[in-house]
């Protein structure tokens, strides 16, 4: 009895301290700022940590560049990125915490579920939100949210159209993650588009977050159905395993993926010969020869000793998109959050943005981006443009 009381007392004490700490923080969005407060949230721990970290690091590079070049309309950017553990609930907590810090514009969230949850909150606060990689259509349901990446259905239909137009195969198998919003979103659109195309889906096999290491069954079924092309609307971590296991089985179809496959060549110690001839529709390729990409990749490598993937490139673009829109609207940090949002909403639809993930990117008021997907094929361990 004594120890319980003692323990209870301790807990209550710490609770009191915690709530005092809560009172001490700054109220956000009140205006009168001398800097732009841009914040984001994404997974920095857990399963999806690599996506969040790439977004954080790339955005930091962009912010640093902009600040060094004199900022936006002469004002510097304060950037802060919080962990959401790939969980909608934690993402909302991260958002609230950023509001206490003084958040004016959201550059997040990284994954779809958290992005949808944050969009609901930003809508209520009328805060502008641009997500680098939250690709589900529900993310841009409201008029204050915009995407840098392609939406899932767009990727699905673009892939189907590409395979059909180029006549890559007549029999296609799909291996997708049925527990993942991104993967099943692309798959469904792909499957419905396939009905109007000149190929046929002969096998559609799923895996889940809880069993994503053994793909023998899925590959065997694809092989038995005689598929010449296997469509992989998944992330590269699983693709590494699929390519390895397909190779062990002696199964060599065309593997075709979306932007989630980008990053596969950066997996440490991965035998890139296994990825030879893999095709993917991606807006970004880390070894593209243009100056912008090379500059970004070099800085990223120097700071973190890793090759950035498309999550990072989208985030880098997102910061520059914000810069251009803020400049076009002559926005200053001392304006109210709501005014900043209205200005950004207006300006972004008139932008014509050239970034790492595409040239001439434009936005409709619905929030979806309009840019050209690039089809690349992996040759000798490097991306090559394919057309």
């Amino acid at each position: 009895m004594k120890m319980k009381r003692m323990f209870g007392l301790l807990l209550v004490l710490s609770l009191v301290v915690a709530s005092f700490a809560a009172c001490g923080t700054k109220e956000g969005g009140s205006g009168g700022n001398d800097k732009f407060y841009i914040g984001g949230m994404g997974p920095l721990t857990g399963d999806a940590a690599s996506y969040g970290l790439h977004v954080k690091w790339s955005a930091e590079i962009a912010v640093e560049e902009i600040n060094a070049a004199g900022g936006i309309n002469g004002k510097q950017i304060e950037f802060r990125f919080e962990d959401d553990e790939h969980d909608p609930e934690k993402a909302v907590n991260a958002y609230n915490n950023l509001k206490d810090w003084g958040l004016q514009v959201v550059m997040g969230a990284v994954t779809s579920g958290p992005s949808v949850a944050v969009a609901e909150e930003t809508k209520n606060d009328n805060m502008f939100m641009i997500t680098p990689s939250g690709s589900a259509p529900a993310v841009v349901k409201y008029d204050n949210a915009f995407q840098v990446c392609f939406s899932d259905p767009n990727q699905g239909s673009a892939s189907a159209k590409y395979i059909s137009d180029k006549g890559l195969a007549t029999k296609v198998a799909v291996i997708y993650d049925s527990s993942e919003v991104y993967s099943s979103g692309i798959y469904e659109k792909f499957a419905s588009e396939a009905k109007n195309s000149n190929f046929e889906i002969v096998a559609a096999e799923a895996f889940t977050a809880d069993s994503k290491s053994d793909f023998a069954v899925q590959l065997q079924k694809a092989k038995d159905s005689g598929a010449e092309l296997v469509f992989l609307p998944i992330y590269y971590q699983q693709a590494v395993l699929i390519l390895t296991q397909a190779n062990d089985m002696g199964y060599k179809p065309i593997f075709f993926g979306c932007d989630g496959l980008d990053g596969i060549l950066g997996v440490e110690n991965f035998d890139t010969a296994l990825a030879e001839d893999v095709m993917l529709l991606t807006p970004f390729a880390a070894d593209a020869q243009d100056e912008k990409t090379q500059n970004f990749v070099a800085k990223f490598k120097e700071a973190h000793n890793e090759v950035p993937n498309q999550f990072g490139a989208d985030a880098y673009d997102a910061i520059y998109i914000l810069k251009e829109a803020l400049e076009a609207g002559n926005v200053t940090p001392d304006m109210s959050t709501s005014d900043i949002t209205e200005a950004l909403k207006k300006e972004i639809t008139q932008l014509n943005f050239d970034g790492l993930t595409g040239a001439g990117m434009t936005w409709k008021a619905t929030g979806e981006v309009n840019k050209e997907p690039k089809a690349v094929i992996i040759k000798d361990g490097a991306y090559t443009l394919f057309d």
Partner: protein
Amino acid sequence: MAIKKTTKSNLITIAILIIIYIVCQILIATGSMSNLMKGLLVPLCYYSIMAVSLNLTVGILGELSLGHAGFMCIGAFASSFFSKTMVDVIGNTFIRFTLAIIIGALSAALFGMIIGVAVLRLRGDYLAIVTLAFGEIIKNVINVLYIGIDRNGLHFSMQDSMSLNLLEDGEAILNGPRGITGTPKNATFTIAIILLILTYVIITNLVNSRSGRAIMAIRDNRIAAETMGIPITRFKILAFSISAGLAGVAGVLYSHNISTLTATPKNFGYNMSIMILVFVVLGGIGNLRGSIIAAVILTLLPEYLRFMQDYRMLIYAVVLIALMIFNWNPTCIQWRENHSLKNYLPMFFKKEKEGL
């Protein structure tokens, strides 16, 4: 007439909750509460409900359950589905949300009963692993379940949303891994705290009732209880399904507090079940007030560690281990007794009777 000691203790807990509620409302009204804290008020309530309801299974019934999040999941999805379909039919938010709470609680309790009938004859770690299995099954099935609605009624599918064959005006409500989006955000702090107090009252009443004493008799000595003529299975299932139903209520609050509801390993997987178990064990097995305190502390802790940046979850893990050792290690218990406030400030403490 003297109030019984347990009743007094329970009234104190409820009074504390009401005081905290009033303090919070004052802080909100004066604008001195941070956005983070404001956003956490409802989650704190539903995690407390989860902890208190799991304590009924673990502390009072004495069975280890690792699938509590599964019941939360059922409550969340059932109520969210109801609210989403009825949002235009029942205009009154209060009535709709009350019905949603009842539906969430009943559906979770029903599953609790079904699972209870099936597995409560297993014991100890075997029961634990079976409840874990059920939690994972629920999560997995919800992830492949598609339910849509159009003017012809409901359509079900276990494949994908196209095979629902919805008409033009139809809408897929439950969309596999994409779950349910756009549940009306009806959960407020007031409702949440009322539900927490209600949960607390239900469980304390159960514990102090005839049934409660029977349940605890089963926990302490099953064979003796059986010999006394207590229908073991019936009481076990009773306790288990009440516990599940209350977890369902927490699920309703969860789903009506966040606009996107998906069943991921993070929110409804075994990780969450174990997290709730951590609240119960840290707060003291069988100690309902302790469960609430532990739930509050451990939910706030990672949020207030955000300033630690990359080291946040590492520190959280260390604190968790340290708390467990501090709370349960014999040497630490001895140390705490020697350095108890009672030794320094005896005037603030009533003398306790020996042999408690």
